[in-house]
């Protein structure tokens, strides 16, 4: 398994990192490492899973938020989402889709299953990523309006 719980890169782990535990499920190493860097730098504790199986396993570690890619090896993002939402233990964890695939039907389907946010990586300003993650952790019931999303 390529997955690991990554917190060691953070140079200033604070006392409340447990409250800021984020799971990133992303297979593209460049992108995974980039977002991990950005979030860790902003004070989050980031667990990284590079495929669907690892993601499901790490979700049992009760992160405050899950950032989920859609095109993933082994188990795709939509499937992971439905497994997370059908598990009593993980269903309350807010999930933000973080992807470069903005296919409207897929995203709408994911929102029906229970995704609460959608961010297109190419248009995402890193500073905005930190802001969204903070907002969703502060308010786990936050949900983006799927009708106002810019989809492909």
């Amino acid at each position, binding site marked *: 398994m390529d997955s690991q719980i990554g917190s060691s890169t953070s140079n200033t782990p604070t006392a409340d990192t447990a409250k800021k535990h984020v799971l990133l499920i992303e297979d*593209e190493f*460049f*992108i995974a490492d*980039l*977002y991990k*860097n*950005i979030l860790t*730098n902003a004070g989050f504790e980031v667990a990284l899973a590079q495929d669907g199986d690892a993601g499901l396993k790490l979700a049992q570690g009760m992160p405050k938020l899950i950032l989920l890619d859609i095109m993933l090896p082994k188990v795709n993002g939509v499937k992971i989402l439905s497994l997370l939402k059908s598990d009593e233990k993980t269903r309350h964890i807010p999930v933000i889709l973080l992807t*470069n*695939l903005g296919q*409207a039907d897929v995203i709408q389907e994911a929102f029906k299953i229970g995704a609460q946010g959608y961010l*297109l*990586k*190419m*248009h*995402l*300003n*890193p500073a905005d990523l930190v802001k969204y993650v903070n907002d969703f952790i502060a308010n786990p019931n936050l949900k983006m309006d799927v*009708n*106002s999303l*810019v989809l*492909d």
Partner: protein
Amino acid sequence: MSNGSAPKSKLPLRAKIILWLIIVSVVPAIFSTVITQIFINNISLVLVGLIFIVLVIILVIINLSYKITNPLLQLKNGLDSLLQNNFSFRMTLNSQDELGQIATSYNQLSTNLNTLIASTTTNLGSITLQRDFLQNILATFPEAVIVLNSQLVVIFLNTKAEQLLGTNMKSSYGKAIGLLIKVFSSNDPLLPDEYCPTFNTVGQPQIFTRKGIRLVSEKESYADLVSQPLKFPGGLQTGHLLTFHDISDEKHFDEMKLDFVSMAAHELRTPLTAIKGYLYVFLRDYGPYLNQEQVTFLTRVNIAAQKLVSLVENLLNITRIEKKALVIHLEPIDWIDDVKTTVEEFRDQAKDKRQELIFVTPTQEIPKLKVDKFRINEVLANLISNAISYTPIGGRIAVLIEKGDQEVITHVQDTGEGIPADAIPHLFNKFFRVSGVLEQGSKGTGLGLYITKTIVGMHNGRIWVKSEVGKGSTFSFSLPVVAK
């Protein structure tokens, strides 16, 4: 027949009969009376007279019957042969009385009939040939042809139409066209009444044409349609002639191309995300330690990456527009604020070309607009990006907002090279570029303004340009003010 020796008589038939009756009745009477008076006591002479009278009468009857029945028999035979389509029979009567005239008339009639029927047969033959010829042309005609009657019921389909609809003449004949095919024009159903125009009030045919319609029948196909009313022979009945140019194959290849472009553009997103993201991280961590030149270089990398992002989005927008999948979601927006933000995104780019990029804050109050923020910012970004590209180093770009009548107009003004007047009408067309590929350098795909115009149109706005070569251009677009 051998009446060649029969005496030629110019006397009418009635005169002949009267003459014969006189001969038959008066002559024997006188004769017998004279004989009887002279030889009253001689019974044998009386008998001789009687026999003579009888003989005369028999001769008369034979002659009469021969004169009358012979032509009648000939006439009967002649008519019989006419009935059997034999026109070679000729009556042979040499008398010049009515019977002779009947024979002459009959012979003439027979000849005339023969000529008439011969010519009619020839005409019928050529009509049949012509019909077959026309049907052959229609059958092998590469366009699908459907003929409807005035009730919009199918009365003819050629082979290509059968192929296009996946049906055949037999099962389609007599069906209402609306039941046989469903026609869609950019996803909107098109009703038979709409695509089957009639003659107008002055009898001119009205022609309906529509490109790229979708036909749903036994199978789905795409075609260009030309439909016009028809007058059938006689001019009383009208109908409709529908001609479909099958574009299903082209449509299929177009879709493959669009899918490929879409796939390629999506694939570009991930490396672009990495380039932009790592630049951000790098500048965040090492920015303070870089010298001016290093910052300039990295800023240029960032500008180039941002241009690539726009290019990828434009490619995706083209596929969305072509697939009619570009949708806009309107939401209220503070337009001044939004434009200011977008202008700021180009600050680095303008600064790099030592251009002055300014946003002129409007003095009027600008009403709230309802727009698709993401898409309308693409419009603005396209126009500002063009202005920067086509304006030389040291030029000036100004963005202005003005309140019009029930609309808000936004101008992007530059001091660039300008656009030749003859290019302006084509400027917003897909793939149009002002100069040749080589002259232009790498300043655009010819897609930006087409997309811009499409998005503005989806907002019910207008877009236009004023330009003077050597002085600069002003691109302007309007957005309708939302009714309160």
